[in-house]
């Protein structure tokens, strides 16, 4: 057996320090200098002093490493180095080098800051630890230095420093005006050159100072340590000169093995590049000693520079990668990307003890089992010391996984059952969490190797312990498809079996290993017959010794509500009542045995009797259903989708009518008779009407199908019981496919003014806009087929930032470095997976009924109302309750009991004329029995209706306590990852949709994945910002309109009758005539003076107050201001200026908030009006008169943060996510969303903004280099880390995985602390080796 992972490893990596190697260190770590460019000598052996020298290690099986003498597999490899004759830039630090050059004086190497600035910045930079904050300071230093021309220390002139080409830096020294004189001097130095080469002349003025690597190196060497700090460096670890190559380390051969192929070998890209570097380097050395022309030398140098750059990063833009050739892989490329070192080898590693193959279903397996194929053992030649791995056997624990692993249920632990053949098999009930089907899907399997791992896997990841999703506590492992179909068919009302049939079916549900008690038959005479429902009774409780007593009342899918009958009397048998594991009524369908419903059978068993019983019941169900259905037969054929005569007629009429109605609408719209809906233009109104009609067609057609189709129709059965497909799908097959919709509207134009060239332009008929009138049975026309095929989905949300959040032992939520995110998880510290109710861990109503049913009456007297109250208070007040439950939970219990028991009983007793007995009788009446009055029969009636005994009440409260205690979240739970998965996973199921907002047809809001992305990324601009305002007077439309007028921007053009140019003899002006009527109608609160002021205040117009004249009460004259200049020019200009003004004037805003696009009055609840404002400007809207500022919110997170603060922003995030998910019919536990809101805002008080969960947000949130490098932009983060000498403390999840350490989460959070056996006494100090030797020498 494999050794378990020891936490007390002899050495533990505490942190990783990033820095740069100095030339000296490179030499020290190396074995030798690489000087030879050739790889092999004439004997085809590695060349000595070449890049494949055997002293660097070996990639050949037969050759030993010359340094350590080990074989290929043992030798870890050794470094060499190349001594560069001329220094070159390091491409990874190139940007940083330019930045540093911009900051320093190019003559004296001092940082270009005045002494005062220098000191303040130094102080700030020294006191800041946060990397993002330091980045900001560095940026501001850089900005400041760029502006300074004269060096404050040596007075030299500094121009801008720029990158030229790919790897060249130029200092434009002569750009500043001051440098003119100097430039002249500089030019003069070329006088001689120009004389001999006249063609040089035109280029001389372009000459600037070239900062080559050598020069930069000299400059950097002069920088003082203090200045290094200002450059953002740590002078101990990373002096600026180290960022320039002087020595290039040659990595071991092991990482760049040569591949030998019959007498020829293929070399790794790195080897090729290295030998190129050596070659160029020797060339330069030779050239320097021999002496060649400067231009040739520069060419060689540039080539060396380029090669070194390519060696590091071959994808740098501008490095002249030739298209067509295979791109070489530099060091950066080895790290980057999905297959790169980080994501391919460090974060995800290849493992032993794993397998992958095709999956197939098997209902005969338990839900927590998985089949493996048996293999033949083939051990032949064993030697002593060999480890023999055993095969899997039945009962082993394995981890089973299907990609994409979107949530924690994508990896679960199963028990092994070894069987023949080659596929992995598992029970269909487990398909849902894996999202697996059997159309060729493959799955992975991992075998934990230690006993600890096995226990942990089966306890935490076992299928049985993951029957519910942590997203909202709904059951996720449940019956699917055929299981639901057959459950439904078995429990239909007209199913009767005789004894032989009944017992046969009962025996289906087990493998002859189950004792079954046959219940009494439902019909005694004339023949003994059992019903199908009784089979289900047996399934729930196979024999008398089983303790499972299910009590459940729930609506089925086909339930029809009617006031005039009891729910049980539903004609569709749609109301299910199960009492003590006996089905009283109702057919079992998806809502009872399927997933995603808390009122389901298996969920009830799970909550009341535990996972084992629930899983057993599910096993029985899957066996029973598959065997029963195989016997009965269930298939679908062409006859199932053939519409009958009546159906076809009805459907044709329906479609003809709809077409006619649409044509009519289009006609009316063309002639302008269609009345616009509020807030819509003509087109939108028409569109809304037509969509309404067409969507009704499909619904109606579906309804006809439901009534007209035979009830034995297979698709119909599947749709009714919910096993596969919906009613819409049935009607699509039988009647009509219906309107196709893309992002909330009908099919848009794909061609000019039409969707397809088959239709006339501008056609708005149903057929031209994607209405498919045919059914799948009748066949689609070509255009219909195309429309039907248009549809799409959006990718999922990436939520990586939450991975290291865990519950700690004080129940707080903290990240890996101990930073506090929530004081108590979700405010109550409960696990979302254990909630039966929306908020409570106990579904009080059902549990009360359950307790009353399972605890026998045993002639106990029923409690009187006051007795119930007293007992409840007594129990709730005891220590057990007070210590382990929250106050709010106790209060809700009290409230429930007084509402459901006490008050009901009191009113019941009163209506039957009994003493209400809601108070304990006072002393004088204490001898009167409240039960004395009233006849026995009346009392019996009351008892039948509501009776609870003391034992029942106590049991109920005890259940409430137990369930609450169980629901407390465990320390170590990785709540962050759970939350991220819970929010991310449903994203895959969301289709892009926009919905009409709160009854206003024209106001759409983005929903679905795009909206979730907006919220999570904390986008600054969102696609549909809406401010919801509460009005002071919310009952009156008129006053709402007035407020609307205050908000909406009104332009001068909207309220002007005309704007005319007036030319008079001595002047010309624009006359603006106001439409007073319109102002009146729009309810604008303005007058001519205000309008005039608005015109003057518009900066763009540049009108002066004198230039405005008010004539009468409805005319404003605007004069173009005069300017100096010759009379003639002035006149010309005047005309044009007048024209410009005329064009600009209608755009003048005279009322309203500029950022508001529009406002719409909408009806909220109960006729109350509210105002929906589209656009930004929450602050302005809030302060507008007539609006309750305190009850006005925006859906824009950033704006809320800016205006109302970080807590309000958090609330907005939570609300918006819940709203969006809710609109898609998905529920997510509020705890997950709260956590997301907290993680986005918990740094709000420090940095004052909402951090988005995207790469910028994450890099602000996280400080770990390894984590960031494994996430995105791998090499950038690594270079940055070296530059700033960052230190990674290896606390987080990603870092632990990379380093191969247990992570501080889940079971890794727990540490055992024990007292030292030494007590308080300190262990003796161990002597160092040399200490003892010294002593020996002394004596």
């Amino acid at each position, binding site marked *: 057996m494999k050794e378990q992972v020891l936490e007390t490893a002899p050495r533990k990596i505490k942190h990783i320090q990033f820095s740069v190697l100095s030339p000296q260190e490179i030499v020290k770590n190396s074995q030798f200098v690489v000087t030879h460019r050739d790889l092999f000598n004439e004997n085809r052996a590695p060349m000595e002093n070449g890049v494949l020298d055997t002293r660097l290690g070996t990639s050949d099986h037969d050759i030993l490493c010359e340094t350590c003498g080990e074989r290929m597999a043992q030798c870890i490899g050794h470094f060499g180095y190349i001594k560069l004759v001329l220094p070159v830039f390091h491409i990874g630090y190139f940007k940083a080098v330019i930045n540093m050059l911009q900051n320093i004086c190019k003559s004296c190497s001092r940082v270009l800051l005045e002494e005062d600035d220098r000191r303040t910045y130094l102080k700030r930079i020294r006191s800041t630890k946060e990397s993002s904050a330091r980045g900001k300071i560095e940026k501001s230093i850089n900005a400041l230095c760029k502006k300074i021309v004269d060096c404050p220390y040596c007075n030299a002139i500094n121009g801008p420093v720029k990158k030229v080409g790919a790897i060249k830096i130029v200092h434009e020294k002569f750009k500043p005006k001051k440098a003119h004189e100097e430039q002249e001097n500089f030019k003069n130095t070329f006088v001689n050159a120009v004389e001999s080469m006249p063609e040089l002349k035109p280029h001389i003025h372009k000459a600037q100072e070239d900062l080559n690597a050598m020069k930069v190196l000299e400059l950097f060497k002069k920088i003082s340590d203090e200045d290094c700090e200002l450059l953002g460096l740590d002078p101990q670890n990373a002096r600026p000169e180290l960022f320039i190559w002087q020595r290039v380390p040659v990595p071991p051969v092991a990482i760049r093995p040569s591949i030998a192929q019959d007498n020829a070998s293929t070399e790794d890209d790195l080897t090729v590049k290295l030998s190129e570097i050596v070659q160029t380097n020797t060339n330069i050395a030779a050239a320097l000693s021999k002496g060649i022309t400067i231009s040739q030398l520069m060419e060689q140098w540039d080539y060396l520079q380029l090669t070194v750059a390519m060696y590091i990063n071959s994808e740098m833009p501008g490095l002249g990668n030739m298209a067509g050739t295979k791109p070489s892989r530099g060091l950066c490329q080895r790290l980057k990307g999905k297959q790169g070192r980080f994501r391919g080898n460090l974060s995800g590693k290849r493992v032993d003890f794993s397998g992958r193959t095709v999956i197939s279903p098997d209902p005969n397996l338990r839900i927590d089992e998985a089949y493996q194929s048996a293999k033949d053992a083939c051990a032949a030649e064993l030697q002593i010391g060999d480890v023999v791995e055993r095969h899997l056997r039945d009962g082993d624990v394995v981890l089973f996984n299907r990609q994409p692993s979107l949530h924690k249920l994508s990896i679960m632990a199963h028990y092994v059952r070894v069987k023949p053949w080659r596929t992995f098999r598992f029970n269909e009930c487990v398909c849902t969490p894996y999202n697996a089907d059997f159309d060729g899907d493959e799955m992975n399997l991992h075998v934990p190797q230690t006993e600890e791992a096995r226990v942990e896997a089966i306890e935490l990841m076992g299928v049985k312990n993951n029957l519910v999703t942590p997203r909202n506590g709904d059951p996720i492992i449940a019956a699917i498809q055929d299981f639901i179909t057959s459950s439904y068919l078995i429990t239909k*009302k007209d199913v009767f079996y005789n004894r032989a049939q009944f017992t046969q079916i009962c025996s289906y549900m087990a493998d002859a290993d189950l004792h079954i008690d046959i219940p009494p038959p439902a019909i005694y005479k004339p023949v003994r017959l*059992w*019903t199908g429902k009784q089979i289900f009774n047996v399934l729930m409780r196979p024999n008398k010794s089983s303790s499972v007593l299910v009590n459940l009342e729930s609506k089925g899918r086909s339930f029809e509500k009617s006031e005039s009958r009891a729910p049980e009397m539903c004609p569709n048998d749609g109301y299910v009542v199960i009492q003590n594991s006996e089905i009283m*009524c109702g057919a079992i369908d998806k809502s009872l045995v399927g997933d995603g419903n808390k009122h389901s059978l298996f969920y009830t068993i799970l909550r009341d009797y535990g996972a084992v019983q629930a899983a057993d019941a599910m096993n029985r169900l899957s066996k029973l259903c598959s065997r029963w259905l195989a016997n009965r037969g269930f298939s679908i054929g062409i006859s199932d989708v053939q519409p009958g005569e009546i159906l076809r007629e009805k459907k044709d009429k329906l479609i003809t009518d709809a077409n006619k109605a649409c044509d009519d609408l289009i006609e009316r719209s063309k002639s302008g008779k269609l009345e616009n809906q509020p807030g819509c233009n003509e087109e939108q109104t028409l569109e809304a009407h037509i969509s309404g009609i067409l969507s009704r067609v499909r619904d109606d057609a579906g309804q006809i199908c439901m009534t007209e189709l035979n009830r034995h129709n297979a698709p119909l059965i599947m749709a009714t019981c919910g096993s596969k497909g919906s009613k819409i799908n049935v009607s699509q097959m039988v009647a009509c496919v219906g309107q196709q919709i893309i992002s909330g509207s009908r099919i848009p134009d794909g061609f000019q003014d039409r969707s397809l060239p088959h239709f006339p332009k501008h056609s708005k008929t149903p057929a031209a806009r994607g209405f498919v009138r045919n059914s799948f049975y009748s066949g689609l026309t070509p255009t219909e087929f195309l429309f039907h095929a248009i549809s799409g989905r959006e990718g999922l949300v990436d939520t990586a930032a939450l991975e290291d959040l865990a519950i700690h032992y004080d129940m707080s939520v903290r990240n890996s470095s101990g930073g506090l995110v929530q004081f108590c998880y979700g405010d109550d510290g409960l696990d979302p997976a254990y909630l039966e109710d929306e908020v409570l861990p106990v579904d009080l109503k059902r549990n009360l009924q359950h307790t009353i049913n399972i605890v026998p009456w045993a002639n106990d007297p029923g409690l009187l109302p006051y007795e119930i109250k007293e007992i409840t208070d007594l129990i709730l007040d005891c220590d057990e309750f007070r210590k382990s439950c929250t106050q709010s939970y106790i209060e809700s219990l009290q409230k429930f009991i007084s509402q459901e028991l006490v008050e009901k009983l009191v009113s019941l007793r009163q209506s039957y004329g009994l003493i209400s007995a809601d108070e304990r009788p006072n002393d004088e009446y204490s001898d009167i029995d409240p039960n004395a009055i009233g006849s026995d029969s009346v009392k019996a009636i009351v008892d039948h209706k509501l009776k609870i005994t003391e034992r029942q009440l106590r049991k109920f409260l005890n259940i409430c306590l137990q369930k609450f205690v169980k629901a407390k979240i465990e320390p170590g739970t990785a709540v962050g990852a759970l939350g991220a998965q819970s929010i991310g996973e449903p994203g895959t199921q969301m289709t892009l949709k926009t919905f009409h907002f709160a009854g206003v047809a024209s106001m759409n809001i983005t929903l679905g994945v795009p909206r979730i992305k907006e919220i999570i990324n904390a986008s600054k601009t969102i696609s549909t910002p809406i401010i919801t305002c509460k009005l002071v007077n919310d009952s009156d439309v008129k006053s709402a309109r007035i407020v609307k007028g205050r908000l909406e921007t009104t332009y001068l053009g909207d309220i002007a009758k005309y704007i005319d140019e007036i030319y008079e003899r001595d002047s010309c002006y624009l006359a603006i005539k106001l439409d007073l009527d319109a102002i009146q109608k729009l309810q604008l609160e303005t007058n001519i003076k205000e309008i005039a002021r608005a015109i003057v205040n518009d900066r763009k117009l540049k009108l002066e107050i004198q230039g405005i004249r008010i004539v009468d009460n409805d005319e404003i004259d605007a004069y173009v201001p005069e300017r100096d200049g010759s009379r003639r020019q002035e006149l010309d200009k005047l005309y044009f200026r007048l024209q410009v003004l005329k064009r600009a004037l209608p755009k003048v805003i005279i009322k309203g908030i500029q950022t508001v696009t529009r406002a719409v009055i909408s009806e909220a609840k109960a006729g109350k009006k509210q105002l929906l404002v589209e656009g930004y400007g929450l602050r302005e809207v809030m302060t507008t008169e007539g609006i309750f500022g305190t009850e006005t919110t925006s859906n824009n997170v950033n704006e809320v943060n800016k205006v109302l603060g970080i807590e309000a922003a958090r609330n907005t995030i939570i609300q918006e996510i819940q709203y969006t998910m809710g609109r898609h019919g998905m529920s997510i536990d509020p705890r997950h969303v709260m956590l997301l809101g907290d993680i986005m805002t918990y740094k709000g008080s420090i940095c004052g903004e909402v951090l988005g969960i995207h790469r910028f947000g994450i890099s602000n949130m996280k400080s770990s280099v390894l984590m960031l490098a494994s996430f995105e932009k791998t090499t950038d983060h690594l270079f940055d880390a070296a530059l700033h000498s960052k230190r990674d403390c290896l606390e987080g999840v990603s870092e632990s995985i990379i380093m191969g350490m247990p992570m501080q989460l889940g079971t890794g959070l727990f540490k055992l602390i024990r007292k030292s056996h030494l007590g308080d006494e300190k262990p003796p100090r161990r002597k160092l080796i040399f200490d003892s030797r010294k002593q020996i020498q002394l004596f």
Partner: protein
Amino acid sequence: MAKKNILLFSDTFNINDCDKDGKKFDRGRGESLEMELVIDVNTDLYPLDIGDRVNVILTTSLALDPSKAQSEDMITGASSAEEMTQKASWREKSSTERDLSDEFEYVMYGKVYKYDEERRSKVYPSNLVISLFGNLKLV
């Protein structure tokens, strides 16, 4: 309780309607007289037509001698028609044994699981019993 009276209810009904929708189930339902009764009956075994008269009783036991009745749970039956019952053993009785069921043509077994009051029915006394027989119910 059991000793007092095993007969909980007895009345005669006129079948005045049979499976309104006609199609919901292959086997139908009927209802009737003085007090309204909606009951699911396996019409393959016991065909009922509109206008038929049935006597329905509700008992806790099939035993003729009340003192021997063991279960207080429930039963019913209908004379010339039907009955409903719970018995200690549901196995075939010997031909010599006699019990209540001999007087009825159709006997069902079930459980009274809920008492409810329905105010809508004016004809009746205050009480309405919903009970259930396997999957058959009576209101």
